[in-house]
């Protein structure tokens, strides 16, 4: 593949990209005029419909890791990449069955609202903010790395310039337009991404009489039957199970996803929006089967790795092969829009943790002026944007799908167990919640540091202290155990259970 236009400025890509920026800035301008209070800034005034929120959830979730990372993994490893495709969907039913409705009824802006509701505010809020920020920052790094690599290849800009452009655009959306702008940016992006991926998949399948099995057969003829079966990437069985746990339970602990349930009017709308989101996301991941194998057959693993070692350029290269430079430009612009939208959502949830959880509820005992809170939230947005830019430049060259799976491990171990226990278990105490969240977050970070990926691949040591690439297998159950044991050892909170129970099922209206 010496003929690729990747790496040279692409006028179609730049045109589409500028169009996307103009549309989203117009949305931001429109949203900024309606963003006057914290309820607007964090929750879009709770005016988003279930269908809109379904698209926005899908937009927040289908990140660069999904589109670029999974297509890359499938095209270079075959079946192994599909483990990510399925794993990333199965968390959604769990969110629907266990979390969405109580979360909407019990909380206001963040998931920490729910955990802290019956407990002591300050310690719970601080612990939740640590879990949120760890998840958000790791996730942000993955997105920034994807964005930097992509723009560098697409537009011929330097990696660093690309990261700065993403950071500045994202800060503008969140700073001025808050949740309303972020939601509509997600909706536009989700429609573009689904449309682009669908079109690309159709073009692949058109060459195989619209029979996916014929495509898979072509891949196995060309690269051996092994590409259709579990292979090297999952050589350690426990690693496979561990990754599966992180993906399944991590979704239910992602702060920027959980925050979306506060943008709809009530629990019923929250529930219905998950159904729409699951359909859209499931459809998208089914498309990644076709895109990944399509890139393997038409472009080839060697050519893909030659352009980008992580494999992240498989989908754009496939687009170029099938539709020439203009289609490459369109797909690149879509992927870039995808990243921009996801970082905006992540930054907003990080800003909410800093302002709503830490500044208002931990430092000012929940009694801060709403206008001050809004100012702090906007200040936090700028800080997080700058952090994202700096870390994006620092972590150049990592595979984005793997980086995101680590963010999922923290969300699944630090946030999910405490959130679930606070909903289900009346005996849960402040000490138990804080212990579970801190243990989950810190143990995950520590074990990631001791894992083969950091110790062997990055630090070039002979062996790693901890055998698993993803620690979720150990850290999720242990976080539950820590939460339960510490709760049983500490004094139970004095709470009005019937009122709490009414509110969990009926919402705030009847919580009197």
């Amino acid at each position, binding site marked *: 593949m010496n003929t690729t236009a990747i790496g040279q400025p692409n006028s179609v890509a730049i045109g589409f990209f500028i169009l996307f920026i103009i549309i989203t800035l117009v949305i931001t301008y429109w949203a900024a005029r309606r963003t006057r209070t914290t309820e607007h800034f964090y929750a879009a005034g709770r005016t988003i419909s279930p269908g809109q929120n379904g698209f926005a959830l899908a937009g927040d979730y289908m990140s660069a890791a999904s589109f670029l990372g999974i297509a890359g993994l499938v095209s270079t490893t075959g079946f192994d990449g599909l483990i990510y495709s399925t794993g990333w969907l199965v968390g959604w039913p769990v969110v629907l069955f266990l979390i969405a409705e109580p979360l909407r009824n019990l909380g206001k802006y963040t998931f920490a609202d729910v955990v802290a509701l019956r407990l002591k505010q300050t310690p719970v809020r601080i612990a939740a903010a640590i879990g949120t920020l760890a998840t958000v920052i790791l996730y942000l790094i993955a997105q920034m790395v994807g964005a930097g690599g992509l723009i560098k290849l697409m537009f011929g800009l330097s990696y660093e310039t690309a990261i700065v452009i993403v950071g500045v655009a994202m800060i503008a959306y969140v700073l001025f337009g808050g949740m309303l702008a972020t939601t509509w940016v997600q909706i536009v992006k989700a429609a573009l991404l689904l449309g682009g991926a669908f079109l690309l998949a159709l073009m692949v399948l058109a060459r195989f009489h619209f029979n996916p099995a014929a495509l898979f057969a072509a891949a196995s003829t060309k690269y051996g039957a092994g590409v259709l079966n579990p292979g090297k990437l999952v050589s350690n069985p426990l690693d496979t199970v561990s990754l599966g746990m992180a993906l399944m339970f991590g979704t239910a602990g992602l702060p920027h996803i959980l925050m979306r349930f506060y943008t709809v009017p009530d629990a019923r709308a929250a529930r*219905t929006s998950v159904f729409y989101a699951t359909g859209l996301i499931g459809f998208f991941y089914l498309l990644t089967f076709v895109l990944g194998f399509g890139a393997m057959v038409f472009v080839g693993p060697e050519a893909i790795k030659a352009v980008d070692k992580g494999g992240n350029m498989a989908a754009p290269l496939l687009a170029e092969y099938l539709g020439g430079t203009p289609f490459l430009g369109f797909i690149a612009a879509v992927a870039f829009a995808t990243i921009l939208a996801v970082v905006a959502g992540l930054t907003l949830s990080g800003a909410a943790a800093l302002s709503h959880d830490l500044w208002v509820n931990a430092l000012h005992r929940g009694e801060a002026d709403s206008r001050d809170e809004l100012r702090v939230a906007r200040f936090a947005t700028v800080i997080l944007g700058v952090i994202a830019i700096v870390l994006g430049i620092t972590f150049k060259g990592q595979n984005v799908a793997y980086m995101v799976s680590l963010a999922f491990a923290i969300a699944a171990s630090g946030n999910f167990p405490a959130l679930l226990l606070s909903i289900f278990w009346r005996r849960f105490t402040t000490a138990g919640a804080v212990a579970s969240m801190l243990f989950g977050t810190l143990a995950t970070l520590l074990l990631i540091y001791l894992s083969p990926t950091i110790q062997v691949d990055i630090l070039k040591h002979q062996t790693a202290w901890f055998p698993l690439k993803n620690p979720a297998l150990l850290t999720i159950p242990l976080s539950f155990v820590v939460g339960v044991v510490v709760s049983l050892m500490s004094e139970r909170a004095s709470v009005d259970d019937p009122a709490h129970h009414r509110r969990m099922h009926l919402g705030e209206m*009847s919580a009197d």
Partner: protein
Amino acid sequence: MATTGAPADEQLRVLAAQRWRIALTLTAVMIVLYFGFIVLIAYDRPLLATLVAPGLTLGILLGALVIVVSWLLTFGYVRWANTKYDPALRALNNAGTARGATR
């Protein structure tokens, strides 16, 4: 509310318990489905390598089915909750509000 609300609270507990039973059962189905797939990947690769059609291995077919069945489960739950659970909840809430107003 402490005295007049008690029967409504009791009814709400029954209704809520029913929702949790359904939610937990569906969650369990989801976990069995997905980890069944993962355990097969980890421990029984030859089975997943079985060809069910030319080019289509059992592994790829099951992976796609996990996605489709997950979505069908959310459909089933949302349908039940919107047509059965919500009306019952609303009836209960209206009754509770009425009692509270006439108290």
